[in-house]
């Protein structure tokens, strides 16, 4: 009877071991593994979101620093394009140039309002003010005037040029150009 009891114990022990092993491998370990995997997946997504937010935060701080630096600059982006009410400054600049280079200047074609002017191909609301410029003077002076005109602090694009001989060794220059004003 005793040896049957030991044999039975072995059988029961084997069955119990198999049941526990089975439940551990196919339920408990799997359950916790799945839960940990889900947490890891969620953490991975959160880390990605966190990285995006950190980048946004860095960008925000950089933007604040850039704006601060920009505010200290002599030329502000707002001043890159004049408004109609301070367009007179651009005309004065050109008149100063005329005096500096001692050339005769005739500006024509500027008319209308910014609301009626055609828009420029820009992102910001900027309009084109076409004009023509006639210059008379010594060639080197006139070329100096044009060179300065091309490199002013405000933008004026000269679309075409023609030069012809005038009396007293001077030249006549006709330029087609545009001013740009903010609406």
């Amino acid at each position, binding site marked *: 009877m005793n040896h049957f009891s030991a044999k039975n114990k072995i059988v029961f022990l084997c069955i119990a071991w198999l049941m526990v092993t089975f439940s551990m491998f196919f339920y408990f370990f799997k359950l916790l593994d799945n839960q940990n995997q889900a947490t890891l997946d969620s*953490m991975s997504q*959160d880390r990605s979101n966190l990285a995006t*937010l950190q980048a946004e935060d860095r960008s925000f701080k950089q933007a604040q620093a850039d704006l601060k630096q920009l505010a200290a600059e002599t030329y502000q*982006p707002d001043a890159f*394009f004049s408004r109609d009410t301070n367009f007179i400054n651009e005309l004065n600049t050109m008149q100063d140039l005329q005096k500096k280079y001692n050339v005769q200047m005739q500006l024509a074609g500027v008319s209308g309002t910014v609301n009626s002017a055609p828009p420029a191909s820009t*992102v910001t609301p*900027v309009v084109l003010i076409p004009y023509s410029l006639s210059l008379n003077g010594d060639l080197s002076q006139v070329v100096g005037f044009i060179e300065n005109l091309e490199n002013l602090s405000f933008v004026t694009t*000269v679309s075409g040029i023609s030069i012809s001989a005038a009396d007293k060794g001077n030249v006549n220059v006709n330029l087609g150009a545009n001013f740009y004003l903010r609406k």
Partner: protein
Amino acid sequence: MRIINLLPKFRQRELYYDSILHGLLTLVIFSFFSFALVFLAQFGTKFYLQIQAGEIKAEIKDLQTQVGKQENSDVKAQVKAANDLISDYQKLVNASPKWSKLVKLFVPLPPQGLKINSFSVNPSSRTIQITGISPTRELVIALYNNILQEKTDFYGIDYPLENIVQETNINFHFTFFYKSNIIQ
């Protein structure tokens, strides 16, 4: 030397099963212990991951509050406005032709004694048309050769035959092209 087991057969079997049972029990205890260890490790990992996930979530919440602030939107709008203005300005400046460079490149080309009456540029076809008066045919040809040699700036000069018909007092004209890079 032969060993003789004097125990009865059933007692021998009993001892044999007992020894198996003992070994098996040790194995079962050891495996249960290892299961418990793995289970605890998994549980510990779960606990650790949950703490980490909580910290990340808290940081995200904190940053979301920070990033979503009105001040941030204002800064973004200011930066965009400044960038748009700067890029528009830069675009227009880059697109503005520098005609003074073109004139300066042409000025040294006419030989002494020859007079240029007109110098017209057609930006759409990138052509230059010049007219003038020359006292001699040789000077007209010299001008032609000078323009022809300036290959880095000008090209495709024509050769109107009427420019060389007369020997003196010639009203000449030429048309030639300029390279787009010289006015940038």
